[in-house]
C-alpha cells in the first residue's frame, strides 16, 4: 500500500493511537499520545475514528511526501507547518495531493505535535494498539521511531473532507498555572513539613525528561521511608527517590516500581507538563479526586459541545 514517505524523521516521531490498555499485567506500559486532547482533535478534524493511528512529533523536524491524494491536519504545540514550502495553518485540515511535501518545523511553544491523515495510517496493531513504545520494541514499524525512507501506509481519501478548530478552542500552551496533584499512595510517609515544601517550591524540568518520566530539579523532599515493595504505577505518579528530586511518570513508565510516591498529577496536567521543554519552571497544587472527576466530565462535555467548522474542499 502507498501512503506517505518519510523524507526526514525529525528528532523523535512516533506512530501512535490512543495507547495500549489492558496489558499491564504482562509488563506492558500504555504508551500513546502525551497530549491526548491534541491527538483526539487531530482525528476529529478529519472525521476519523477516535483511535485512528497518527503521528506524535516531538520537538519537530519531520518531513513527509504524500503518495496519495488525501487530507491531513496538524494539532498540538506550535510546530510550524509547511505544505510545498508554503506556511499552512495548524488545527486546520488541508487537502494534500500525491507529490506534496509536508514539513513540520521545530517547536516554538509546546513540545509535541500530532499529525493525522484521513482514515489514519494502516499499521498492524500489537497487543491491541499501534502505539510505539521504543523501550518495549512494540507498535509502530518494528517498535521504533520513524526512520528516513519509512513508508506510512494509508488509503487515498480525496473526498474525506475536514474541519478547522477556531483559535479560542485550542489549548493554551503558555498556561503556567500550578500543576494539580492528587495526593495518594505513600502520602503518609511525607510529613506535613515535607508536603508544604513540595507545594510551595518551584521545580525546574531537567534535561532528563523523556516519555518515561520528567525528572525535576529543586528543593529535595524527604519521605520517612526509602523504598517500598514494588507496586503498580499510575499515569502521572510522582515518585521521590533517595536524592529527593521528584520524578513525574508519563505514558512510557515502567508498570511497577519501588520508590515512595506522594500522589499523581491530574491527567490534564500530565499532558500540560509533557508539552513543556526542559528548563521550564513549574509548581504544584493539591487537588482532590472529586475535583478531578468533575473536571474530567466537564471537559468531556465541553469537547463534544464544540462544533468545528467544515473546510471547503
Amino acid at each position, binding site marked *: 500500500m502507498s501512503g506517505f514517505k518519510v523524507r526526514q524523521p525529525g528528532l523523535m516521531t512516533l506512530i501512535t493511537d490512543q495507547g495500549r490498555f489492558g496489558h499491564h499485567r504482562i509488563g506492558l506500559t500504555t504508551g500513546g499520545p502525551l497530549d491526548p486532547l491534541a491527538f483526539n482533535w487531530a482525528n476529529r478534524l478529519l472525521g476519523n475514528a477516535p483511535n485512528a493511528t497518527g503521528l506524535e512529533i516531538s520537538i519537530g523536524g519531520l518531513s513527509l511526501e504524500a503518495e496519495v491524494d488525501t487530507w491531513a491536519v496538524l494539532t498540538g504545540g506550535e510546530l510550524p507547518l509547511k505544505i510545498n514550502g508554503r506556511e499552512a495553518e495548524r488545527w486546520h485540515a488541508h487537502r494534500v495531493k500525491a507529490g506534496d511535501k509536508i514539513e513540520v518545523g521545530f517547536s516554538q511553544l509546546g513540545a509535541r505535535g500530532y499529525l493525522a491523515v484521513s482514515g489514519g495510517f494502516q499499521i498492524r496493531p500489537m497487543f491491541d494498539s499501534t502505539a510505539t513504545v521504543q523501550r518495549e520494541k512494540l507498535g509502530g514499524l518494528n517498535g521504533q521511531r520513524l526512520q528516513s525512507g519509512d513508508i506510512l501506509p494509508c488509503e487515498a481519501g480525496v473526498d474525506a473532507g475536514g474541519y478547522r478548530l477556531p483559535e479560542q478552542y485550542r489549548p493554551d500552551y503558555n498556561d503556567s498555572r500550578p500543576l494539580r496533584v*492528587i495526593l495518594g499512595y505513600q502520602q503518609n510517609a511525607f510529613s506535613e513539613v515535607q508536603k508544604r515544601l513540595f507545594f510551595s517550591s518551584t521545580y525546574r524540568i531537567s534535561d532528563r525528561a523523556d516519555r518515561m518520566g520528567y525528572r525535576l530539579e529543586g528543593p529535595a523532599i524527604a519521605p520517612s521511608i526509602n523504598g517500598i515493595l*514494588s507496586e503498580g504505577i499510575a499515569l*502521572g505518579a510522582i515518585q521521590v527517590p533517595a536524592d529527593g528530586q521528584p520524578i513525574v511518570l508519563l505514558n512510557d513508565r*515502567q508498570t511497577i516500581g519501588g520508590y515512595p510516591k506522594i500522589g499523581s498529577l491530574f491527567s490534564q496536567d500530565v499532558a500540560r507538563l509533557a508539552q513543556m521543554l526542559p528548563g521550564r519552571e513549574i509548581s504544584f497544587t493539591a487537588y482532590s479526586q472529586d475535583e478531578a472527576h468533575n473536571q474530567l466530565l466537564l471537559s468531556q462535555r465541553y469537547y463534544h459541545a464544540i462544533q468545528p467548522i467544515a473546510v471547503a474542499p
Partner: protein
Amino acid sequence: MRIEVAGENSLILYFGDTTDPQISAQVQSAVSETERLLGDALIDLVPSYASLLVIYDPYKIDHLEARRRLLQLSDLSNLDDATEGALIKLPVWYSPESGPELEALAQKAHMSVEEVIALHASTEYRVYAIGFAPGFAYLGQVDERLAAPRLSTPRQAVPRGSVAIADRQTAIYPSTSPGGWNLIGRCPTRMFDPDATPCMPVQVGDRVSFEPITKERYLELGGEL
C-alpha cells in the same frame, strides 16, 4: 485490605507489606474478583507482591462507586489454597560461561558451584510480579544463602534468557537489556514473544522451578550464545 488513592481514576489495594505466598494469593484472587466487580468499567490492573493497582474508566464510574465495589473484596483474607497457580518447569544451562556471577555466589555462600545449582534449581518459586520490561517475572524467594545485592555497576547489555538473582528474587531476562542482577545461567525458553499465544509461559501467581541442562541441550532447545 487497605485502599489508597493512586490517581484520578485509580485506586491501589494493599493486602500486606511483605513478600509472602499467602498475601500474593490474596492479590491473585483480587484480580479475578476485581474484573467481575468492575466489568467494562475496568481499564487495567497491575498485580504486584502485596498490592493491586486498579485503573477504571472515570466516564463509566466515579471514584466513590469504584471504592464501594472494591470494598466487597475485604473478605479475601479467609481464602483457602485453591488459588495455587500452575507449576512450570523451565530448563536452565547453569555455568560460569552462561552465568558470570555463579562462582562468586558459590564462594560467598561457602558452597560448591554444583551445590548452588542444585539449590537454585530445586527451590519452588512463586511469580510475585511482572514488570520492569515486558515479560520480566519477579520470582521469589531465593534461598537466603544465595541472596546477593545488585551489581554496583549494571551491565549495558544482559543477554536474553539470562537467569539472575537480586536480593532474594530471581528472574529470567525476557530480552537483551541493561541490568544489574547477578547472572548464574541461561534459559532457552522465550519468556516474552509478542507473536506467540500466550506471549508468556508464566503469569502472576504461577509456581516455577528450574531443571539444570547442559550447553548442548540448551542449544538444541533453541538457546542463543
